[in-house]
């Protein structure tokens, strides 16, 4: 029998993690599938499990003057129902999985699972999200694009717990999100596209673009975004093809049981071009 712990508070969870090599279990919707065994048999966890999904310290959603702060153990439903969360974030979340899964799956779990198809990720990358990691020796902040280094791989230390997700407050006034899957719910993404912009006086002030499930990690190109800043409608129309070709070099999907590379690339670029055509 593998040990399991249900710490009474976050501090206790950190202490347990310091002294033991454990698996952190928040919502469990990825872990219970990964460790699934036969009916009636306990899942195949090889290391002790620490339940953290109930810890109040990592379940809050607040706004401070700079960011929206989301506790890592907030369920997707809790985020979608919270009055501090803007509509465009709720829309991304409500496209994920199904009501029952959203009721226990956590944003922290989606990030730490670091699937190339993780649905919260394009949004979080595009918004320059910062992650707060904590251990018994202190706290550190890591930008999300530095946190995830490959499929299923993050730079979290063995004694750290992802505590909070910080999304900088922004003034974006246009959003485009599309999750492409085989059905409207409980779909694993073939690809996803998130685009947002802030426009002012007929020109682009800020613009963010991110693609999911078309590379080992989320595809975002700050240098291409910078090329679009300050551009007006007339000049944008002339740039779309060139920008699309640049992104085409960065989008490297694979053939797998969900989809083929050709389809993923074509649709990604179609979504990008549609977004750019409609930005101004």
């Amino acid at each position, binding site marked *: 029998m593998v040990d*399991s712990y249900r710490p009474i508070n976050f501090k206790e969870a950190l202490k347990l993690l310091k002294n033991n090599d454990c698996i952190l279990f928040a919502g*469990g919707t990825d872990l*219970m*599938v990964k460790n699934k065994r036969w009916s*009636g048999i306990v899942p195949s966890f090889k290391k002790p499990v620490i*339940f953290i999904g109930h810890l109040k310290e990592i379940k809050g959603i607040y706004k401070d003057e700079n960011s929206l702060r989301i506790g890592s153990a907030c369920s997707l439903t809790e985020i979608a129902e919270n009055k501090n969360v803007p509509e465009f974030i709720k829309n991304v979340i409500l496209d994920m999985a199904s009501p029952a*899964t959203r009721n226990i799956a956590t944003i922290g779990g989606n990030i730490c699972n670091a699937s190339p198809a993780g649905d919260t990720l394009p949004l979080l990358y595009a918004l320059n999200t910062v992650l707060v990691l904590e251990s018994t020796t202190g706290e550190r902040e890591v930008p999300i694009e530095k946190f995830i280094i490959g499929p299923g791989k993050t730079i979290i230390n063995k004694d750290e717990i992802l505590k909070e997700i910080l999304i900088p407050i922004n003034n974006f006034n246009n959003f485009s999100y599309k999750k492409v899957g085989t059905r409207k*719910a409980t779909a694993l993404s073939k690809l996803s596209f998130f685009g947002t912009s802030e426009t002012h006086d007929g020109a682009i002030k800020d613009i963010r673009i991110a693609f999911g499930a078309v590379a080992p990690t989320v595809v975002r190109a700050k240098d291409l975004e910078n090329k679009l800043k300050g551009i007006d409608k007339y000049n944008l129309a002339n740039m779309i093809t060139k920008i699309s070709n640049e992104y085409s070099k960065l989008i490297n999907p694979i053939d797998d049981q969900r989809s083929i590379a050709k389809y993923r690339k074509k649709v990604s670029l179609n979504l990008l071009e549609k977004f750019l055509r409609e930005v101004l």
Partner: protein
Amino acid sequence: MKKVINLILNNKSVSIEIDPLRRLLDVLREDFELTGVKEGCGEGECGACSVLINGRLINSCMVPIGTLEGAEVLTIDGFKSTEKYKVLEECFKEAGSVQCGFCTPGMIMASEALLRKNPKPSEEEIREGVSGNLCRCTGYNMIIDAIMLAAKRGEGLW
């Protein structure tokens, strides 16, 4: 190591000494003999095992019992005795929503979760509410009709 877990199961306080990693689904079906809860996929995708935990619709195959200290769990077996269930049952019968019946307990729990939050759902909202419940037999439309009918007939219950 086994632990004692205390929870409120179908409105009764219960305690069980058990491996906290055992799935709620197995605890319900085997340890408490509540076989109304079905195992379809065991992966949280089909909804056949759905129950209400603290009022939320959750797939019991995804939940280790150790996370449920102090939680309120309602299964189809407990829900069956309520007035709301009787309305749903009647409507599922009338609309022809049950063929093999395997998805039905999950569909009923999803309907209850939906109607608790939204007593007068649109068709779109009903479809969204059962979007995590798979049915291989009916093609879903009769199930949607039944829930629509139940919302009308159960006026005041939700």
